[in-house]
């Protein structure tokens, strides 16, 4: 066995946690959208990429910094999401769920193709905001401030989302509408508007992950295309029945991926898919899933 420096181990663990943050934000958005709309949003990776591009444009075209982008980019991309829901997804109600997958797959191709036409495939740099540059020396490892911020902030957003859905009145409406939309409408709640906003919210979470990723991964049109497939595997592993489950699975799989990079780097691309296969053998409905 190779001798490990704790330095390498902890830095890979941190990278794992960061990827885990993105997995958690994206799979959370997928789960929220699936709960309300019963579709799997294939365009999620494209919206994640749009979030990063949005931050890039806000900085380079309008001189608006990272902190503004953190709020404005998710709002703008979320707005695009609501338009998509109103004009297209909305019309698929009552059809087989697979049509939602096919439609959003088409959208993903359109969005990604357009961005690739205009920006090629190379990455555009996005600087770390000045307040978060530098690093802390913790003795056993050097912790870059920005990376610590990404993990803490993502975890906070995930928990806030969980709190909103599971512990507030709005969340109660949402959960009720997931179970029985007709009945909730009968109580005078505007369910179609709620569905639109839910889609917008899920998409905004993806865009937020994109903004967070911009300084770490560079901004490129293809940043979402392979990422979304891994997130799908995360969703299969966790099952979409539980909000907290999605969050935990996302972070845990990021860490597992990071550890694989240390111990058996050849498998780091595939480890999540292997975990998925094992989970399917042992608990087909997913770790936190219910039903089929």
């Amino acid at each position, binding site marked *: 066995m190779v001798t490990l420096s704790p330095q390498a181990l902890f830095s890979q663990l941190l990278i794992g946690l960061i990827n885990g943050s993105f997995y958690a934000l994206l799979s959370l958005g997928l789960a929220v959208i699936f709960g309300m709309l019963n579709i799997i949003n294939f365009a999620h990776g494209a919206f994640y990429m749009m979030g990063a591009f949005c931050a890039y444009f806000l900085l380079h075209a309008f001189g608006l910094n990272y902190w503004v982008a953190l709020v404005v980019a998710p709002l703008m991309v979320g707005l695009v999401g609501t338009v998509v829901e109103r004009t297209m997804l909305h019309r698929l109600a009552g059809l087989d769920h697979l049509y939602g997958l096919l439609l959003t797959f088409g959208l993903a191709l359109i969005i990604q193709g357009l961005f690739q036409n205009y920006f090629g495939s190379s990455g555009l740099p996005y600087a770390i905001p000045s307040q978060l540059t530098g690093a802390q020396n913790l003795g056993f490892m050097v912790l870059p401030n920005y990376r610590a911020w990404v993990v803490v902030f993502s975890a906070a957003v995930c928990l806030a989302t969980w709190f909103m859905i599971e512990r507030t009145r709005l969340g109660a409406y949402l959960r009720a509408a997931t179970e029985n939309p007709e009945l909730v409408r009968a109580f005078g709640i505007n369910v179609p508007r709620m569905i639109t906003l839910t889609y917008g919210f899920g998409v905004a979470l993806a865009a937020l992950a994109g903004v967070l990723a911009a300084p770490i991964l560079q901004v490129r049109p293809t940043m979402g295309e392979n990422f979304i497939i891994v997130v799908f595997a995360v969703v299969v592993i966790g099952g979409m029945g539980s909000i907290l489950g999605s969050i935990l699975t996302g972070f845990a799989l990021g860490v597992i991926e990071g550890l694989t990079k240390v111990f058996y780097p050849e498998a780091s691309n595939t480890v999540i898919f*292997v975990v998925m296969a094992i989970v399917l053998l042992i608990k087909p409905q997913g770790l936190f899933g219910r039903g089929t």
Partner: protein
Amino acid sequence: MAKTDRSVARDGDERIAGSERTAFAVLVAGLVLAPFFFYPPFLMEGLCFALFACAFNLLIGYVGLLSFGHAMFFGLAAYVSAHAAKVWGLQPELALGLAVAAAGVLGLVVGFLAIRRQGIYFAMITLALAQMIYFFCLQAPFTHGEDGIQAVPQGKLLGLFDLAKAWVLYGTTLVVFLSAFVLIYRIIHSPFGEILKAIRENETRAISLGYNAERYKLAAFILSAGLAGLAGGMKAIIQQSASLTDVYWTTSGEVVLMTLLGGLGTVFGPVVGAFLVVAIQQYLSQQGQWVTVIQGAIFVACVLAFRRGIIGELAHTIRKPL
């Protein structure tokens, strides 16, 4: 059980409609005459993808399973046949046989895992497993990573027919395609195919009638994977190369698009869809990513306004199966 099977078979036989015979005659005549009008390499690529789409349609159209990772069978089979022909020096029929076997075995493993879930999860699982196979092909030494396997010798089919001659290659491709097409047609209209359709319509009921739905689904999945492998193996021999594109998710998406555009669950739709999509690719090959944008737009248009597909609409208009 045996009695039921026979009566189902008779129902099936009665459904071989005149419209389908006519369409088949048109298809054969068209494909025999086509090399006089079109560039043969384009036609052969079209035939490979048509076979691939028909194999995919066997699952989505007749079992209701959307596999979003069919490129793994197509691409892996392409690598296997290219490797067998080039490195092991096997004859093309043996290389193809190995390719089909490899795809079938992979189909067994993937199918075994994926049929544990249904609907949307099935699609996500097949996509994820296909991505795993993609990374395997990216890293495994025999695929030569980004370079792929190039300059695959075409060899002599059965030791007699020299596939390096254009018309022999086209004839062979056509025969393989038509045989597989007829096989798929027979599968769809066999008692086995009727049970698949029953499972698609109402799985619980099929189970209550005593059919082991999972086993039927797995069998259909393996058949579909093997036929997709045949298409991939053919493509490697025709184009003399196998590359990562064949096994990437974009190829999985393209086969979905071909089938959707032609008509899900129609016999002839995937063929029409495949030729159209390949034609669009060739026509726009110099236009960068516009191919991707247009494919995406076709997806959106098909789902929103045109869910029966071209042949599906036609069949609906003339009120006969196609």
